[in-house]
């Protein structure tokens, strides 16, 4: 059409002021609408080249006439029209593309996915829709989920993360072609949840930058939602795990209680049977005084055992009701209490050796003497119960760093490491102890409660050679 118009103007030998010159606008406007800025500019260039000679000839032939001026204005109008129409058409197309991109973003957000997957999808959509060469996404914790593998602390992304305002870098990198980078914060409820960075060689128009800022808000909300959803999922999983563990624990407690009822019946019946038998013997048969004393000693031991079991039951009942054990604390020298407990077992349990080592003078403690006695007797009694005859039970007391420590170490089979923390639970008995002697599984839980009531700790560990070392630590008085 340019050629046709030019040929017609030339054939008619028209001046640059002819109204027919406006026909050049038709192909220029059409090319601008159809092909955008490039099309409009090229068509305008063609029109200028075609119409220019008419203007130049007028200037050369007649000087700066009105027709020449009109021709110059026409050249300017053609150039501006080509660029402006092309620009407007391109802007309208970009606007449509932005709506498409926004729709694509919203579609991506509608799909349930992990935070990383959502972020990667969003970066990919932005890169594709904005014809960017690179798109990257950094989350608020500095984790890069797309576009790079680390964040430089002085990078535009780090700056935007810190200052929460978009950044337009007109010279991104040192390549031969100028690259632009746009970095926008991803915001949600006035919080920055990350940044989006987009780069390409070529310009980013103001509209594109504004659109990216809009994307940033939408994506920030989406990422926040994805993060909340992920947190909710994690919370649900943790809750499920905890409920499962609690259920298993309740089932285990139930089993242990059932076992305990059976065991307690047995434990109570055994001394009662012994008492019943020995008392019947004493009532029905004459015995020598020495034999009477021996039987009475046996009966006393069984009564003590009954008493201990009943005490443990009562303590456990208090603990399960959430009540503290009744203790009467006073300033106490622990050394005589320890020595008395060891001496009692030395006299009554001759099948084992019970050794006491006290390292230096022990400081006083704020404790209930009866409670401390129960703790020590329970630990030494357990050590004797589970150690082979002839073996040695070592009780060692020492003070250091404001703490009085008492170790009771035996040479028994030991406690598996995975069970050492469980032995202080009520009703719990290790897998190997049931065959080694009677017990309710309450003693160590009562020991733990008593020690903790004094502000101390108790724990089990492997012995120095074999067996187990139980350690009680009580705070010393200054």
């Amino acid at each position, binding site marked *: 059409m340019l050629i046709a118009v030019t040929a017609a103007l030339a054939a008619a030998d028209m001046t640059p002021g002819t109204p027919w010159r406006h026909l050049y606008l038709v192909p220029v406007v059409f090319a601008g609408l159809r092909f955008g800025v490039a099309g409009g500019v090229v068509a305008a260039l063609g029109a200028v080249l075609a119409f*220019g000679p008419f203007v*130049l*000839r007028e*200037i050369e032939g007649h000087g700066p006439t009105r027709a020449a001026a009109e021709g110059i204005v026409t050249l300017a109008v053609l150039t501006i029209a080509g660029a402006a129409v092309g620009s407007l058409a391109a802007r309208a197309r970009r606007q449509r593309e932005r709506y498409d991109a926004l729709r694509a973003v919203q579609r991506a957000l509608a799909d349930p996915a992990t935070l990383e997957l959502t972020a990667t999808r969003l970066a990919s959509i932005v890169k594709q829709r904005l014809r960017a060469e690179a798109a990257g996404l950094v989350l608020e914790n500095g984790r890069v989920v797309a576009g790079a593998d680390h964040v*430089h602390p002085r990078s535009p992304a780090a700056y935007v993360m810190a200052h929460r305002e978009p950044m337009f870098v007109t010279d*991104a*990198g040192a390549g031969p072609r100028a690259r632009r980078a746009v970095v926008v914060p991803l915001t949600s409820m006035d919080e920055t949840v990350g940044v989006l960075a987009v780069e390409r060689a070529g310009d980013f128009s103001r509209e594109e930058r504004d659109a990216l800022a809009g994307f940033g808000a939408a994506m920030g909300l989406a990422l926040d939602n994805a993060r909340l959803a992920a947190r909710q999922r994690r919370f649900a999983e943790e809750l499920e795990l905890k409920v499962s563990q609690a259920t298993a624990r309740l089932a285990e407690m139930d089993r242990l209680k059932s076992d305990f009822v059976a065991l307690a019946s047995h434990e109570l019946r055994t001394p009662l049977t012994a008492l019943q038998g020995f008392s019947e013997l004493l009532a029905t048969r004459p015995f020598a005084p020495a034999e009477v004393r021996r039987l009475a000693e046996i009966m006393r031991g069984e009564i003590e055992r009954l008493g201990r079991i009943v005490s443990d039951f009562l303590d456990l009942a208090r603990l399960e009701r959430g009540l503290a054990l009744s203790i009467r604390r006073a300033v106490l020298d622990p050394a005589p209490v320890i020595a008395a407990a060891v001496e009692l077992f030395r006299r009554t349990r001759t099948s084992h050796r019970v050794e006491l080592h006290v390292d230096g003078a022990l400081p006083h403690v704020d404790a209930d003497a009866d409670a401390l006695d129960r703790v020590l007797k329970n630990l030494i009694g357990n050590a004797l119960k589970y150690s082979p005859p002839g073996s040695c039970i070592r009780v060692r007391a020492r003070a250091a760093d404001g703490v009085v420590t008492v170790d009771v170490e035996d040479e028994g089979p030991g406690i598996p490491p995975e069970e050492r923390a469980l032995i202080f639970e009520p009703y719990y008995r290790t897998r190997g102890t049931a065959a080694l002697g009677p017990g309710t599984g309450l003693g160590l839980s009562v020991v733990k409660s008593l020690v903790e009531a004094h502000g101390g700790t108790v724990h089990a560990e492997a012995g120095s050679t074999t067996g187990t070392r139980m350690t009680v630590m009580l705070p010393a008085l200054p």
Partner: protein
Amino acid sequence: MYAITDPWIPPRRSLLAGMPLPLLVVLGLLTATAGALAAAELLPLTPARAVGAGAAQGALLATAVTWTQSRPRSRTAPAMAAAVVFVGAVGATLPAFAAIAYLVAPVWLWTQRCKLPGLGLTRPPIGMCVAGAALGTLLGAHLLLTASLTLGYGVRVATPAHLVSWLAYDAGANVLTTEAFFRGALFDRAQRRWPFAMASTLVTVVCLARYLVDPLLPHSLEVMAGAVFYLTLLSVANCWMYWRSGSIVPGVVAGVAFFICYRLLYVLS
């Protein structure tokens, strides 16, 4: 990705920062001296013009080299750039084929291309070079057509000696220094600050000024109008080709093609 992994470096202070002012002053003094000597008829006009053109074009190339050389910056490279252009200009005053001396500048630039990473001496896509040649030829043909049909100029057939000297002058001095400074240096800086439209407009205006103040250009109205018309198109197109390719080679090709056509014109007596 730059925006995430690289530290942000704020833009330079000024668009024209880092000009080799002492060297430009020396070249200016040289031109002024040659002009004064010619005015006093102590120096013939031809060598005086050669000195002036060589100094002006040398100033353009020296500035371009100063702005675009890599670190550590060489103190001698800008002076060397001005010197090779100046040698070419002075050499051209000797017998016809001595214009080959103009080719010293492109040869020197070629040897220095690794030290001038920002000057756009990279190898461009073939398509861009073809586009440059087509554009220069189109504008040149249009100029020939317009001038011969409407402005009363004639078109002559160039002899090989003329063609060689024109080619050497344009490729080694006129177009080369123009593209090196206006595209490789000035536009490169401008495009890293502003959008293409603003950067190309600025560079085109300055480039037009460079040609319009050139004393070798006839100062008649139609020639000035033609110069504005064609050089505007050529400059904008060269900016676009540099913008797309990052190389000044397509612009040099377009410029050489156009100016060869331009030199085929002569005024009908």
